């Protein structure tokens, strides 16, 4: 077994030196930049993934916003349509009511006017008739006094002349 220790001083000596040298050199030239690079890349990837997640959430937000806006717009439009319809209905109904009232009022006025005029006319007629009757009566009375025949003819003529309206 001594054969395993035949160069033990040399191997111990050189391993100490060379391992220390390689450790220091590798630390500075290799592991430093490698571990740093790996860390940076991992952070970058993490950052990118987080950003993508955020962007996706933002898009979802935007989409729901859009949806909400659309919904609102639709509701508003519906409301406006309903209002307009209501208003027009009301307008038409009002107009109808107004027209009806006006018409009725006009009819009443017309009736009153007709009644008034007819009463006037009847009064006039009555007065005329009375006047005529008085004239006839006067004339008759005059003629009768002179001649019976004439009186008769006169009465007939006067009646035919006088038109009762």
């Amino acid at each position: 077994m001594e054969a395993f220790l035949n160069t033990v001083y040399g191997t111990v000596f050189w391993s100490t030196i060379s391992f220390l040298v390689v450790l220091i050199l590798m630390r500075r030239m290799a592991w430093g930049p490698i571990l740093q690079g790996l860390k940076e890349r991992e952070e970058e990837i993490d950052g990118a993934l987080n950003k993508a997640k955020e962007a996706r959430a933002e898009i979802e937000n935007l989409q729901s916003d859009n949806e909400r806006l659309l919904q609102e717009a639709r509701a508003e439009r519906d409301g406006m349509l309903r209002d307009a319809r209501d208003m027009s209905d009301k307008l038409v109904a009002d107009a109808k009511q107004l027209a009806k009232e006006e018409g009725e009022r006009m009819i009443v006025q017309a009736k009153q006017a007709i009644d008034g005029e007819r009463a006037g006319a009847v009064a006039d007629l009555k007065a005329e008739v009375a006047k005529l009757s008085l004239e006839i009566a006067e004339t008759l009375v005059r003629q009768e006094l002179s001649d019976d025949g004439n009186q008769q003819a006169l009465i007939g003529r006067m009646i035919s002349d006088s038109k009762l309206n």
Partner: protein
Amino acid sequence: MRKGFGVRNTVAIFAPKFATAMFDTTRSNNGIMRFSMRIMSLLLSLGFTGSVLASSGGGENPDPGEFIIHHIADAHDIHLWGEGPSAVHIPLPVISYSPEYGVSMFSSAHLLHHGEDHVDMSDHGMEGAHEEHAPHGGSGQYHCHETGLTYSLDGNGALHAHNNAGEHVHAYDLSISKSVLGMFIVIFMMLLIFPRVGSAYKKRKGQAPKGLQNALEPLILFIRDEVAVPSIGAKKADRYLPFLLTTFFFIFLCNLLGLVPFIGAFNVTGTVGVTLILATFVFIITTVSGNRHYWGHIFWPPGVPLPIKLILVPVEVVGILLKPAVLMIRLTANIGAGHIIILALTFLVFIISDYGAHTAAGIGTGIFSVAFMIFMYFIELLVAFLQAYVFTLLAALYFGDATQEAHH
């Protein structure tokens, strides 16, 4: 083991060409054995490492245990292939420091020997006359004029120094051994790869990862998110991550380096010295970052009756050192064990065929050995990752323990 056999080394067979060259150098007169070895070499050269030994003299068969241990252990050279005089080694620098005599640095080629010289030494050794003779690793000597010391390797591949008077001198062996070189290769690879990845993160900020960066990112994230953060907590994990990542990739790459064929079977994480230092770093960091809560739990566990405290406190105190020690042993043993199994399976062929005496048995065993070795190789790939992971995870758990805030 002083059997004096000429068998000298572990040989990794990677291709029939090398294997054939190796077997041609064997001194076996047995034609059948040669034939069976050629068959074996073909089987073994399917693309994975197999270690085979060959008799280079004497005719005595080696002890498999000893042979395997030498293969697993660290060495002062990289043995590619071949045996004896034709062996192909890559010599490595030997550095020895003696407080009295100073520093000496020379090529390990002086300690390994070639040609006639080697054979002579070998024969000499067989007679048991030369104490410094090594059945493995070489028995050459090198005299350094500056320090005046003579250096040689013993049977375990350990370096020894003697002064001119022939007295043994205590000298520290600080050689760039096979494991140290393996470590340097891994560190070089890490410094080549990771700073590039680091700059890719700077350059390509905010972009998807690409190429090398993309390939390594899962492992880095695995250590960060599955090891460090659950054990230490997200806030404090950053402080320990550079150490954990360095440790993980260092161990993982060392483990993989040990599985690469053709390059002399490195066994960096199976070398005690290396894992000892890794565990020591874990121990130091745990101890330094231990908070009141951590030490309180060790020296005066709350809510425990006094008699039990008397038992528990020593156990906890021993545990401070034992935990990193276990880390070291686990890693060394696991990586060594894989190599041992593959070598043992190779040896099985030679044992069952009685070193070439029974060709049919050798071929039959060889087929199963090879199949099982391929299986083992896949297991080893898994273990290479698993042990790096386990070491890092346990280190992270210890750091987490040390920095945990009171929660009751």
